[in-house]
């Protein structure tokens, strides 16, 4: 039973309406204090038992969920009453979906063509290319190797002999008419003949 201070019905707000309010207050309070009819609790209990049997009977009549035939017991669906639990589950679902989509997207990305990097061509004057080698700056002066000295044997230089002159010499020495034209090259004189032929003064001077 609540106190008078807490009862909004007892707090007179308007003195002029107090007499009128007492009239309907009395009526309403009389209604509010009416006793419940006899046996109402038993009737409600019996109705509830009938209602509970009805709900459980439907489950028992179904062969799929009968206890004897049931092999696997599926866990009862967890009712997420808490708003935080529902939000956490929703966030987890969003993360799973987004993560799966990102994984699929990353795998089916087309392979980008490799960009060929054109290396600078080193100017080769010798004919051989650098084969893609990077030119490294020369930081140290390497040892200088002097070219190897080549010994060349002096060659006997034979002056150029006029064949006409040679033919006349041969005629002078042998007495034969000099024949113009192609003549066989004069055989080199033997040292004795050449030595004998030397003091002869040149004819025709």
């Amino acid at each position: 039973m609540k106190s008078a201070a807490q009862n909004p019905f007892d707090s007179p707000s308007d003195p002029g309406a107090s007499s009128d309010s007492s009239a309907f207050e009395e009526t309403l309070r009389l209604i509010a204090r009416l006793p419940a009819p006899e046996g109402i609790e038993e009737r409600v209990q019996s109705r509830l038992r009938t209602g509970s049997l009805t709900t459980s009977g439907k489950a028992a009549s179904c062969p799929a969920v009968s206890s004897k035939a049931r092999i696997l017991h599926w866990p009862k669906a967890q009712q997420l009453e808490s708003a935080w639990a529902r939000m956490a589950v929703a966030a987890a679902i969003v993360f799973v979906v987004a993560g799966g989509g990102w994984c699929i997207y990353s795998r089916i990305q087309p392979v980008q063509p490799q960009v060929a990097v054109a290396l600078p061509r080193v100017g080769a004057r010798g004919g051989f290319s650098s084969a893609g080698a990077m030119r490294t700056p020369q930081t140290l002066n390497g040892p200088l190797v002097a070219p190897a000295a080549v010994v060349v044997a002096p060659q006997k230089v034979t002056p150029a002999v006029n064949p006409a002159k040679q033919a006349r010499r041969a005629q002078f020495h042998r007495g034969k008419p000099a024949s113009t034209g192609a003549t066989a090259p004069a055989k080199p004189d033997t040292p004795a003949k050449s030595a004998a032929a030397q003091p002869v003064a040149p004819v025709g001077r």
Partner: protein
Amino acid sequence: MSAGQAVFSGWMEIADKAEFGEAACQYADEAALAGLVSQYTGTLYRVAYSVLRNSADAEDAVQEAFLRVLRHRETLHEVRDQRVWLIRIVWNVVLDRKRRAKTRPETDDVAELARVLPAAGLSAEERAAAAQHHAHVLGCVEQLPAKERQVLLLSAFEELNSVEIAAVLGITESSVRSRLFRARNLMAGLLNHARSLR
């Protein structure tokens, strides 16, 4: 025993344990519900009668309210104030019934009130006059706007303070006080008008 048989037997054990747990929970829920019925049936009947003004309809409304509680018995342990929670359920039930039912004539109220009102030390004529007076007052209450009428009816119950009335109606306590103030002024005007017409 093969591995498959071991797993199979494990599942059967789980099923048996789960069935036992379910039965235990169901028994506990039914026991809790029976306690609520024995404790709050009278209060719920009076709340239903204040709106429906018929004994049979009020009893049906109480049974309907407890059937709704039976369907959601798993949430019984989560309710802090079960009395206010039950009153809110029966309040919604009677409002739905009243919305569907036709307008009751005042003569039905007179007959009903004459039957249910206590008749200690009153003659038959006095009882009839009192019933008629009360029926007239209830008629004036029915003329009030719905929001003010609901607050006025609930405020007549000594078991409910303004905070609990606000919880039943789903409004704030300040709204309860303001609506009650308006309801009292409107009732005073209606009764004065009726008195002037006589």
